[in-house]
């Protein structure tokens, strides 16, 4: 109890409050502007957070991550354009409700649903992280290796209809992570005698290029589209009544978001997909889905907002990021020499409790902000797209140049920007590259560390944990191939 109280003392600091406010409100604004999204914002802000206290930096980034989807629902519902990609499903029922003059009801329903998802996942984070952390000391190199492999396998197979290219890009990410001087024999790998390649590609440079600079190019080359905003009429708590009415859908969707958030490589899209289908299957009027069903909004928004806090569970307990945004946050931990994993709960427990409390406050502040400030946010949504492109490119400079004040970093970032731009134009995924880079690095280190105890392949999986994870990998692959086979038979 004393520990919890002493952890809460951090909220007497003004900088913690500033980080919470900037992160939560900034996240809502970023989410509400179509074309920006939390990945771009976090990639840009990441280097700036390196000089901050770790709790401040992580809180700010978590604020953006956790609140962007709240904001992303606004344009999805009002103008049929999702603010962030994960709000796409909200357009189905949200925009239909707007066309039926129920815009306020739909928007507030999305807020309350997101809030429910956020709070349920924080509760799950508090209980499950400490539970996993108790098991985590039993994790050896082989177990972490298998967990990282599970993450990569799930990233690939979760890209349905794009598994081949997702696999290719995962290995590409792993490959670019190997470039430079390796740390065991100190030999050069794929440096092509270029001195600037000796230290390899910095994760931030690649991230900024693939997410931020590529998005700036997309916006700069595209056209400005002016949307007409519908008026918001009605009471602020209209949506709350709908949420209470469909509380079962909310709880199922929140649970689905938590489960999908914990599993590395799966994330918001599958969480929403499953929640939406479950909500439809248990509804009295499934035919309304896609035409303005409140349960549709609840399923989509509750599930996607339950993912961020849940995605922190494998990161905090095992040091394994499940998706791109937690992979970015991992670098903040490393910069401050706070290594996520079982030790975190022994050495930095006050930091962990502070993080839990910050996450809770972020959700409360966002909710209050949105209930009173939505009409002002509508103006921000209308920022011209090409001007956003100018701003993102200018901000990307800060992100990459502050790393080492290096022109070469900026050129590398621009090259990855073009690569990301091409991938986006071809509708190919970017996230596998980042996860390949981060998890590939973890895998190589653990692979080498485990060699002393390895004689045959079976030594990798003869431990209870690694064996169980391997079994999960096999089952996941079997389900994947079975679903392909079934689809082809149809």
């Amino acid at each position, binding site marked *: 109890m004393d520990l919890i109280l002493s952890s809460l003392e951090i909220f007497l600091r003004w900088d913690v409050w500033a980080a919470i406010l900037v992160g939560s409100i900034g996240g809502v604004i970023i989410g509400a502007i179509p074309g920006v999204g939390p990945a771009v914002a976090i990639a840009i802000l990441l280097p700036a957070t390196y000089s901050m206290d770790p709790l401040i930096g992580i809180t700010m980034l978590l604020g953006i991550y956790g609140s962007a989807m709240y904001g992303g629902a606004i344009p999805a519902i009002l103008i049929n354009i999702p603010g962030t990609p994960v709000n796409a499903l909200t357009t189905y029922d949200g925009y239909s409700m707007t066309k039926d003059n129920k815009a306020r009801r739909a928007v507030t329903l999305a807020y309350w649903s997101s809030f429910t998802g956020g709070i349920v996942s924080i509760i799950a984070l508090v209980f499950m992280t400490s539970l996993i952390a108790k098991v985590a000391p039993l994790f050896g190199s082989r177990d972490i290796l298998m967990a990282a492999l599970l993450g990569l396998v799930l990233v690939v197979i979760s890209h349905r209809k794009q598994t081949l290219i997702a696999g290719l890009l995962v290995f590409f990410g792993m490959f670019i992570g190997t470039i430079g001087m390796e740390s065991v024999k100190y030999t050069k790998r794929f440096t092509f005698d270029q001195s600037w390649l000796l230290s390899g590609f910095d994760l931030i440079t690649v991230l900024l290029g693939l997410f931020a600079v590529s998005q700036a*190019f997309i916006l*700069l080359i595209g056209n400005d589209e002016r949307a007409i905003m519908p008026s918001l009429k009605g009471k602020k708590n209209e949506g709350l009544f709908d949420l209470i009415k469909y509380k079962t859908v909310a709880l199922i969707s929140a649970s689905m978001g938590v489960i999908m958030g914990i599993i590395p490589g799966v994330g918001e899209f599958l969480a929403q997909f499953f929640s939406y289908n479950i909500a439809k299957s248990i509804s009295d009027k499934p035919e309304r889905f896609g035409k303005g069903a409140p349960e549709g909004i609840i399923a989509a928004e509750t599930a996607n907002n339950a993912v961020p806090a849940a995605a922190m569970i494998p990161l905090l307990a095992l040091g394994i990021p499940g998706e791109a945004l937690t992979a970015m946050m991992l670098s903040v931990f490393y910069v401050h020499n706070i290594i996520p994993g079982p030790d975190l709960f022994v050495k930095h427990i006050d930091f962990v409790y502070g993080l839990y409390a910050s996450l809770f406050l972020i959700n409360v502040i966002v909710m209050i902000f949105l209930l009173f400030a939505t009409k002002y946010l509508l103006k921000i949504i209308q920022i011209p797209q090409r*001007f956003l492109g100018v701003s993102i490119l200018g901000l990307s400079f800060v992100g990459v140049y502050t790393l080492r004040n290096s022109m070469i970093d900026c050129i590398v970032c621009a090259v990855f920007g073009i690569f990301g731009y091409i991938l986006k134009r071809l509708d190919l995924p970017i996230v596998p590259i980042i996860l390949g880079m981060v998890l590939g690095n973890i895998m190589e280190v653990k692979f080498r560390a485990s060699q002393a105890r390895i004689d045959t392949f079976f030594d990798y999986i003869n431990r209870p944990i690694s064996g169980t994870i391997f079994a999960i990998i096999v089952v996941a692959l079997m389900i994947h191939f079975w679903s392909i086979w079934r689809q082809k038979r149809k």
Partner: protein
Amino acid sequence: MGKEEYQAGDLVFVMLVLFIVLALLVSIPFETKWFDGIPLVKQPRFWPTFCIVGMTFFAVPYSIQVWRNYKFQLGQVQGELNELSSWLRPLEYVFYFVLYVWSVPLTGYLLSTLLFFSLLTIRAGYRSFLMFWVSLATGFGIVVVFKSLLQVKISSGAIYDYLPDSWGTFFMIYF
């Protein structure tokens, strides 16, 4: 397992991928080291080779998939060329970006940013005074937030050396 519909540019992309994968496979012996007497899995060469072989493992069936999809839509040469030219369009903005990076150590972060934002806003097609001022305000705001308040590490401009001492120091620290 692959995209079911062909999209202009897929074939060119796949050809580039195959070329890169092949080039990487060929360069493995030259770009990685092999130590005699050390088991394969402990060689510095092992992990990059594993990654490149993994890339090849997925690249080959992906190429076949794209080729199969392409065959049904022959006669799309113009579409391919149009897509290819659109891939080159960001190069113009890369040039502006690199110019901006190059100018910062010379003219300072503030001046470079104001010029970058205002000129790029004009290039993006905005001609109104309002957008011009908005671009300047945005650029100034970014400099104040990141350099003046957050004190991120950005090299100061050579131009500040020509300012009077007190002003020069002030600009070096905050702008």
